[in-house]
């Protein structure tokens, strides 16, 4: 079954009753209200993933699941370089980790370096997503993708600063799981390796891509069309921002808020990116807790989560 077929079949799965005892990692306010068994309609072929993610959130809320407690995520850095180009000193990795930890602390995620490996390989260094080079690189280097975050630094072509895998892709392609970021996007670089000006060198690409890895969409996902990025407290945004057009853009009909250009999930310059919203943090907790449950022993052991999973997948 390919990814698409998987998603289609997942989208057609119906919610079933799911009750169980509360795991230590969850808070459950009252007894869970049993879900009604619903009958499947014909699923829309797209965007099946969004539908499925929404089902997950609905099921978690219906079962009063709230992920609490810290999840510590081991991070495996794979530094792909071409001679000196792409080589990253420890100072930059530490600065990047500090930034990730600051950005994700409100979601109770903590990142810890587990591994840093250097690999000299020109083809991997200049790869593009979806090519053999990406697959080859990740098959050769990716490690413990269920229980850690693999970060590859390289110089992807085509104006790409980075790309990531969504948590719901893990089941079908676990070996491809992880985040790829441009080596010149990490903070505290001693020398510029890329064309100047380069307003993407403060480490926000990793924050952005890890956001995808945790299940967040771009703030401009879907443009002005509901449900946008599936996060209620980010304004609808017609298209990606560039630079830092703070309090300047709001092109969607009926949208009274300005575009969320300071959000980590937009395309603004690094210096402009400042925050996630509370609902984004909630979504991160939900998506990581549900799809990346193996990161945390408590979510891994939870019978309630297992029941919810079996009911909607």
């Amino acid at each position, binding site marked *: 079954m390919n990814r*698409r077929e998987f998603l289609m079949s997942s989208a057609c799965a119906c919610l079933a009753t799911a009750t169980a005892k509360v795991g230590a990692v969850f808070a459950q306010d009252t007894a869970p209200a049993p879900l009604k068994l619903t009958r499947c309609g014909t699923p829309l072929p797209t965007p099946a993933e969004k539908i499925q993610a929404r089902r997950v959130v609905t099921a978690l809320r219906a079962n009063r699941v709230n992920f609490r407690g810290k999840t510590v995520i081991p991070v495996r850095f794979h530094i792909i370089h071409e001679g000196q180009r792409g080589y990253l000193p420890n100072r930059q990795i530490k600065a990047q980790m500090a930034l990730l930890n600051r950005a994700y602390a409100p979601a109770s995620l903590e990142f810890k370096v587990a591994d840093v490996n250097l690999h000299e390989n020109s083809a991997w260094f200049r790869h593009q997503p979806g090519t053999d080079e990406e697959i080859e690189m990740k098959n050769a280097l990716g490690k413990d993708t269920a229980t850690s975050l693999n970060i590859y630094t390289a110089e992807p072509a085509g*104006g*790409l600063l980075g790309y990531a895998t969504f948590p719901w892709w893990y089941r079908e392609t676990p070996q491809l799981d992880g985040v790829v970021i441009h080596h010149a996007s990490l903070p505290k670089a001693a020398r510029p390796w890329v064309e100047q000006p380069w307003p993407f060198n403060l480490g926000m690409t990793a924050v952005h891509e890890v956001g995808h890895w945790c299940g967040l969409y771009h703030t401009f996902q879907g443009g002005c069309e509901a449900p946008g990025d599936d996060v209620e407290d980010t304004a609808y945004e017609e298209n990606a921002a560039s630079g830092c057009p703070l309090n300047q853009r709001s092109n969607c009909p009926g949208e009274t808020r300005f575009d969320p250009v300071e959000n980590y999930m937009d395309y603004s310059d690094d210096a402009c990116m400042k925050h996630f919203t509370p609902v984004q943090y909630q979504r991160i907790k939900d998506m990581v807790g549900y799809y990346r449950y193996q990161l945390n022993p408590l979510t891994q052991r939870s019978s309630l989560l297992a029941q919810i999973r079996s009911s909607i997948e």
Partner: protein
Amino acid sequence: MRPILLLLAGLALSFSAGPAHALKHLGGCDIVALAAKNSPVAVSPELWLDYREATEAALASGGSDPRALSARVVQAQMDFLAALGGSAAYQDYLAGDSCHLLSKLNASAVDVLLAEATSSMSEPAAQALGAIVQAARTQIDNIERSARFRSNRDKTLFAAQYYCFIAAAIVAFLPPERRAEIALEDFGETVSCKDAGRT
């Protein structure tokens, strides 16, 4: 430990057998533009026939990996354009204002055109065409949703590679009279090559 290493090595080998750059080709948009009745470049009917045959042969070359199949289709597209490569009219087209790329695919329009194209194809080739079109759409959709680009312009140019590949693959199988009616806009929204930053 050893069996795990062998398994990983096997996986790596099985994945590395395919093409390096599959499912995308910016020049595909030129092929669609050159098919139009008011094409800026005269293309002989024989070249169109060669293109169709080469694309069909690529699709029929076997294997179920859409990426490997698509690499052969891209080669057929490149061969077609290479045959025009020296043409001053083609170079003028590339440098001029009429050169356009697809910036957004109209999914339902593509489905209709794909159905039209496959209606005159052998079943295996039709299935293969459907598979590579779907694979390209899925691929760029996934990339667009999970990537950060330096700018919208970079994103547009990146996505155009996939959209143009799709359009040219479909156009290969439209009958000549129908092909002449088709414009790039029939596949979706377009952007000028200059605005997209095509070099």
